[in-house]
């Protein structure tokens, strides 16, 4: 088949859109954290870009989409495309009409953001070094295998017939379950559930991040058609209305419960809607997407309170939003998938329970959800536990209380001086540790995590 230039252009554009989501996530999470730990929060997302991009090219693409061999092939891909050298000029092997490299680039961005999503569970207290070890190990042992199960033609969940258009299981349930595991290993922050200081330090950052995520998500969902076609167009519209409906639903619940809609509620509802429509964008019609969005927005607005009742400190609600909305969206396919859409977007027409399709789709979806959730939680727990035992996953209490940003040798904001003049409390130019301005800092002066 000839290379389709329209589709190639679209998929490369979408790869860039999905790339933008991770810095967007950094703002979304960073705004929600406290002023003294915003840099650390953002750095965990940025660290994922640094390490997962490289890992993806080295082995990630091959382990996820490479041809496996023998009995292992439903579980993990082979090593045939390690380093991407064997697909440099390949065409049509991954997706009909596309250069293989376009698909590899697009999927790289999914691996990056999935890892970054987890970091929201461990705000304010995780050692950056431990995170930078966790990120690639988790990608190797959890993301690449699960993405292979779900999206590779050899994958066992794929061949079960489960539907995950753009990552409800592989990305959001996966990251959400991992977030729960890591939050349990790292433990609760000092003051969790009692300290009133635990509130977002910059809501405009949160809204900026949500806007970037929403924009990038068109690449995530509509791009997952991996072609410039009708499926992409349907996914695009579904993404917009489900997200809008979820943001509206969250605000409405807030208005009824607390007598006021909040900007954080809008942003949180929007992300819940984006997550929920992710697996379902190619199977629902726009009306079904609106229903899904309303449910996801309303349910997640309650789900975020679960952590206080159950006592786990998932700082920025990765579980309450990504895991819960991921499950809702993946299961909803079993009810709301409609032949009017799937007859065009899929190889064969598929109908959910409400459209006369019977229980089979629903059952397959439940199996996929449970399998991904269980494997991700158990494997992530073990990985985090081992890292915690070997190098320690958590900073000292003093660092946590004073602000974890100090381990990065920076502070996010210069508020110490009046009008920025450094009049109050700022260090003198030849700072107290004896280092003159411009002189490299001696390594032993670095704050110990």
């Amino acid at each position: 088949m000839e290379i389709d230039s329209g589709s190639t252009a679209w998929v490369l554009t979408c790869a860039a859109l999905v790339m933008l989501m991770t810095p967007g996530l950094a703002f979304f999470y960073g705004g929600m954290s406290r002023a003294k730990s915003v840099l650390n929060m953002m750095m965990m997302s940025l660290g994922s870009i640094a390490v997962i991009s490289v890992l993806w090219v080295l082995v990630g693409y091959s382990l996820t989409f490479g041809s496996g061999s023998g009995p292992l092939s439903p579980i993990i891909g082979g090593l045939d495309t390690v380093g991407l050298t064997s697909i440099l000029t390949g065409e049509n092997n991954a997706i009909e009409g596309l250069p293989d490299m376009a698909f590899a680039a697009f999927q790289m961005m999914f691996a990056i953001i999935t890892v970054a999503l987890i970091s929201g569970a461990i705000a304010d207290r995780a050692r950056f070094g431990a995170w930078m070890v966790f990120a690639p190990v988790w990608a190797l042992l959890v993301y690449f295998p699960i993405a292979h199960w779900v999206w590779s033609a050899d994958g066992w969940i794929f061949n079960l017939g489960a539907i995950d258009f753009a990552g409800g299981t592989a990305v959001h349930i996966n990251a959400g379950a991992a977030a729960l595991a890591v939050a349990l290993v790292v433990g609760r922050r000092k003051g969790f559930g009692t300290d009133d200081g635990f509130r977002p330090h910059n809501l405009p950052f949160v809204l900026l991040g949500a806007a970037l995520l929403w924009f990038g998500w068109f690449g995530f969902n509509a791009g997952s058609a991996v072609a410039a076609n009708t499926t992409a167009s349907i996914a695009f519209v579904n993404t917009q209305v489900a997200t809008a409906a979820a943001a509206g639903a969250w605000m409405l619940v807030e208005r009824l419960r607390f007598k006021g809609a909040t900007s954080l509620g809008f942003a949180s509802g929007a992300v819940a809607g984006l997550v929920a429509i992710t697996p379902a964008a190619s199977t629902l019609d726009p009306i079904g997407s609106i229903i899904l969005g309303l449910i996801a927005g309303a349910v997640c607005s309650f789900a975020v309170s679960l952590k206080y009742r159950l006592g786990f400190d998932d700082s920025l609600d990765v579980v309450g939003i990504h895991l819960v909305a991921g499950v809702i969206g993946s299961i909803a396919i079993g009810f709301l998938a409609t032949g009017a859409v799937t007859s065009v977007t899929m190889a064969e027409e598929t109908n959910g329970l409400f459209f006369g399709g019977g229980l089979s789709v629903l059952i397959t979806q439940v199996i996929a959800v449970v399998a991904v959730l269980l494997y991700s939680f158990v494997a992530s727990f073990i990985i985090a536990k081992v890292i915690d035992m070997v190098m320690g996953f958590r900073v000292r209490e003093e660092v946590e209380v004073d602000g974890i940003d100090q381990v990065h040798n920076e502070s996010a904001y210069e508020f110490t001086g009046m009008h920025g003049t450094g009049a109050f409390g700022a260090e003198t130019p030849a700072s107290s540790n004896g280092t003159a301005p411009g002189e490299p800092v001696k390594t032993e002066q670095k704050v110990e995590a």
Partner: protein
Amino acid sequence: MKLITAVIKPYKLDDVRAALDAFGILGVTVSEASGYGRQRGHTEVYRGTAHRVELLPKTRLEILVEDSDVETVVDVILKAAHTGMIGDGKVWVVPVDEVHRVRTGERGAAAL
């Protein structure tokens, strides 16, 4: 000489300044303050979790005046800052031993 300190609602600052200006007061020090009195704080809600905000933003004015002006200036402030709602603030007066003007070295009433 006396130091008058007033803690008022921030949005009343312009009214109070205009009133002081009309009276002929030539200098005021204004700073942002936070605190609580009878008004206490308020509640904010983030993702369904209520957070008490105990300290409310207030504006603090400090004015040095001659003894003879104290009563009138206090009245001017009380009138201009008044809304009748809880949280209007407070005004208090303390004696001042000395005042010096940095630029000229003038002392006492001449430095006001």
